C-alpha cells in the first residue's frame, strides 16, 4: 500500500527552491548568502532524509496523485545526494572564504552561486522523487541549465569554453533522452485499458511492462542510454566531462562527480526493469549497459595515464567509475547490489579528492601534478587527503571501493562473463598503475615549488577529511545492517521492478 505524504514531499521540493529565490534577490552580504545556502541545503537535507526514512519504513511513499513517488531506489539515491550536498556545501564555505580573503569572490558571485546551488538541489531532488518520467526528464534538463553557470563562477576563457561545451553537449544529449521517453510512452499505446494520460508514470509502465511493444521499447532504451549516458559521462559521450570538471570551482566539481553523474545514471536504472520485462528478460538492456560500462572503463584508463592536471585526472577517474557502476548494473544479480554500493563509495571518495585538489590548487596556484610533488609535507591535511583518496579510488584494500569492485568481479564470475571480466581487470590494472605513478610523488616526491603560506587548517577542514575517510574504511570492513537492507531493496527494484513489501 502506498503511503501519501503530500506535505513532506512538496516541502522537500519547495524549501531549497525558496532558498534559491531568496539568495538571488535578498542576499546583501557574503554572510547572508552563506546563511541562506546553509538554511536551504540544511532544510532540504533534513526533509529528504525524513522522506528516505519514511520510504524505508513503509516501502514506498507518494504524493500528488502518485506524481511524486519515493521507493527504496529513490530513497537510497536521495541519501547519497544529501551526503554529497552537505559535504560540498560545508567545503564551499571553506573554499570561497579563502577566495573572498584573496579578493576573488564578490557578492555578485556569491549570490549567483547560492541561488544556483540551491536550485540544483531542487532539480536533482525532482529527478529522484518524480514518478512521471517526463518530469524526471525535465529535472535532468533543469540540472544542466542550473549548473552551467556554476562552472564559470570565475569567468575566464577556459571556464567559458568548458561551460559552452557542457551546455551544448548535455542539452543535445538530454534531448535524445526525451526522444527515448516519447518512444517509451508510444510503446504502451496499443495496451488495452492503458490510460494515455498515465503513459509516462513509471509505476504504470512497470505494471504493464510485459505488454509493451518490444521493438519500440528497445529503440527507446537506446535513445535513453545515449541521452542520459551523455549526462552521466559514459564513454564515448563523455567529452564535456573532463573540461567541466577541471574548470569548475572545486565544490562544484565535487558535486558534479559526486552526484550529478549518479542522477543521470539513476534515470537509466529506472528504465532497466521495464525494458527487461518488455523484452522477455533476455538480458538485452543489461548487455548494452555492460558493454558501455567496459568501454568507459577502458577510455577512462587510457586517458588517466597521460593526465598532468589533477582535476582532469579525477574527471577521467569518474568516467572509469561510472563505467564500473554501469558494468555492475549490466551484470545483474549481485552486480546490481555492488553497483549501488559503489555509487555511495565513489561519491564519498570523489568528493573528498576534489576538495583536496581544490584546496591544494588554492595553495599552489596550479593543478599541475608535477608541481604538486611533495604536497603531503607542504600541506599535511589536504596533501594526505588527496594521496589517500587517490589510493582508495584506484581500489586499494581495505577501502570500501575495493569491496564494491570485488563484488562486481564476483558478479562477473557468477554470470560467466569472462570477456567482460578480463576487460574490467585490464582496465582497473591500467588505472592502478597510472594513478599510483601520479600519487607516489605527492607523498615522497621532491617539491619544486616553495609555498610561503603557513600550513594551518581549521577543525572543520579536518572533519571534512577524516569523516569520509573513516566512513570508507569502516564500510570496507563492515556493512551495517540498515545499509545492507537498503541496498538489497533498491537493487531488487532494478532487477525486478517490484518494491519489497514493508516490514
Amino acid at each position, binding site marked *: 500500500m502506498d503511503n501519501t505524504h503530500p506535505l513532506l514531499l512538496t516541502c522537500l521540493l519547495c524549501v531549497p527552491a525558496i532558498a534559491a529565490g531568496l539568495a538571488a534577490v535578498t542576499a546583501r552580504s557574503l554572510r547572508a548568502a552563506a546563511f541562506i545556502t546553509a538554511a536551504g541545503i540544511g532544510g532540504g537535507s533534513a526533509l529528504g532524509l525524513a522522506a528516505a526514512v519514511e520510504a524505508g519504513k513503509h516501502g514506498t511513499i507518494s504524493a500528488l496523485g502518485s506524481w511524486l513517488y519515493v521507493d527504496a531506489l529513490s530513497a537510497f539515491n536521495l541519501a547519497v545526494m544529501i551526503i554529497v550536498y552537505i559535504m560540498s556545501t560545508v567545503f564551499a564555505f571553506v573554499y570561497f572564504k579563502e577566495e573572498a580573503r584573496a579578493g576573488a569572490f564578490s557578492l555578485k558571485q556569491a549570490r549567483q552561486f547560492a541561488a544556483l546551488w540551491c536550485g540544483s538541489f531542487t532539480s536533482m531532488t525532482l529527478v529522484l522523487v518524480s514518478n512521471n518520467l517526463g518530469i524526471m526528464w525535465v529535472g535532468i534538463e533543469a540540472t544542466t541549465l542550473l549548473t552551467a553557470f556554476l562552472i564559470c563562477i570565475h569567468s575566464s*576563457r577556459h571556464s567559458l569554453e568548458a561551460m*559552452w561545451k557542457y551546455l551544448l553537449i548535455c542539452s543535445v544529449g538530454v534531448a535524445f533522452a526525451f526522444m527515448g521517453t516519447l518512444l517509451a510512452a508510444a510503446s504502451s499505446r*496499443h495496451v488495452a485499458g492503458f490510460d494515455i494520460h498515465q503513459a509516462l508514470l513509471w509505476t504504470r509502465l512497470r505494471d504493464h511492462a510485459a505488454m509493451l511493444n518490444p*521493438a519500440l521499447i528497445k529503440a527507446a532504451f537506446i535513445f535513453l542510454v545515449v541521452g542520459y549516458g551523455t549526462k552521466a559521462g559514459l564513454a564515448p559521450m563523455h567529452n564535456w566531462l573532463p573540461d567541466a570538471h577541471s574548470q569548475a570551482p572545486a565544490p562544484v566539481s565535487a558535486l558534479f562527480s559526486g552526484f550529478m553523474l549518479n542522477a543521470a545514471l539513476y534515470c537509466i536504472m529506472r528504465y532497466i526493469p521495464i525494458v527487461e520485462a518488455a523484452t522477455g528478460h533476455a538480458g538485452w538492456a543489461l548487455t548494452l549497459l555492460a558493454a558501455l560500462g567496459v568501454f568507459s572503463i577502458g577510455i577512462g584508463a587510457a586517458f588517466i595515464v597521460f593526465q598532468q592536471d589533477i582535476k582532469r585526472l579525477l574527471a577521467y577517474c569518474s568516467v572509469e567509475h561510472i563505467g564500473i557502476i554501469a558494468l555492475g548494473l549490466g551484470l545483474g544479480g549481485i552486480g546490481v547490489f555492488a553497483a549501488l554500493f559503489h555509487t555511495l563509495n565513489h561519491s564519498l571518495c570523489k568528493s573528498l579528492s576534489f576538495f583536496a585538489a581544490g584546496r591544494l590548487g588554492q595553495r599552489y596556484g596550479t593543478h599541475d601534478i608535477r608541481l604538486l610533488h611533495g604536497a603531503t609535507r607542504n600541506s599535511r591535511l589536504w596533501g594526505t587527503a588527496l594521496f589517500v583518496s587517490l589510493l582508495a579510488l584506484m581500489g586499494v584494500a581495505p577501502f570500501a571501493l575495493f569491496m564494491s569492485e570485488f563484488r562486481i568481479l564476483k558478479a562477473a564470475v557468477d554470470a560467466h562473463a569472462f570477456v567482460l571480466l578480463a576487460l574490467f581487470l585490464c582496465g582497473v590494472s591500467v588505472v592502478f598503475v597510472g594513478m599510483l605513478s601520479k600519487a607516489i610523488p605527492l607523498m615522497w616526491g621532491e617539491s619544486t615549488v616553495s609555498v610561503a603560506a603557513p600550513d594551518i587548517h581549521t577543525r572543520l577542514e579536518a572533519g571534512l577529511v577524516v569523516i569520509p575517510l573513516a566512513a570508507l574504511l569502516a564500510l570496507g570492513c563492515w556493512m551495517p545492517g540498515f545499509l545492507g537492507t537498503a541496498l538489497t531493496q533498491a537493487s531488487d527494484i532494478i532487477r525486478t521492478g517490484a518494491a519489497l513489501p514493508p516490514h
Partner: protein
Amino acid sequence: MSETCMMVLIVLDLALLGISMVNTGILIVGLQGALLGAFVIAVNAPALSPRLFVIACAGIAIKGFLFPLLLRRTIKEANIQRDMNPFVGASLSLLIGILMLASALWLGAELPLTGVIRAPFTVPASFMTMFTGLFLIIARKKALTQCLGYIVFENGIYAFGVAAVGEIPSLVELGLLLDAFVAVFVMGIAIYRINQEFDHMDADELRSLKG
C-alpha cells in the same frame, strides 16, 4: 492539413541548410516553431480540447516569437556578425540534406510505428528535422548557429511527440516548453558572455581544452 505541415517542415529544413545569414536562420526557426503549433491543432482537429488549444498557442508564442526575439537580442547586444561562417558550404550542405532526407524516409519505413503514429509522414519529417539540427550543430562555426541547431533538433522531437504520443499531461508539456525556453535563454546569456571574453563567438575557437 497535418501532411502539409510536415511537407513545409521538410522544406524549411532544407532552406536552413542552404542559407548563409544568421538572421534568415532565426526567421526560419521561428516559422518552424509556429508551424509546429499549427501542427498540434491539425493533428487533434477532430477532437480539439481547449487545453490542447492553449498548449498549442503557448508553443506558437514561445517557439515562434519568443525564441527569435531572444536570439535577435543576443545578436544585437553581442554585436555578432551576420554570416553563418560554415565549415561545410551551402551546396554541399544541401546535398547532405538530401541524403539525410533519404535516411529519414528509410527510418520512417523501418520503425514499427504503424498504429502508433496518428498523422502520416510525421516520422520522416521529424527525423529529417532532428538530423538537420544535429548537422547545424556540427557543421556551423558560430555558437549562435549551434543554438539554432539545438532548437531545430528539439522541434523535430516535438513533432514526433505530438504525432506518436499525442496527449501528454499539460504539466509535463508546460515543463518541456519551460525547459526549452530556459535553455535558449541560458544559451543566449552564455553566448553573450563568451563574446565579451573572446571578442568573437566562433565555437571552433573554443578548443584550448583537450585530452
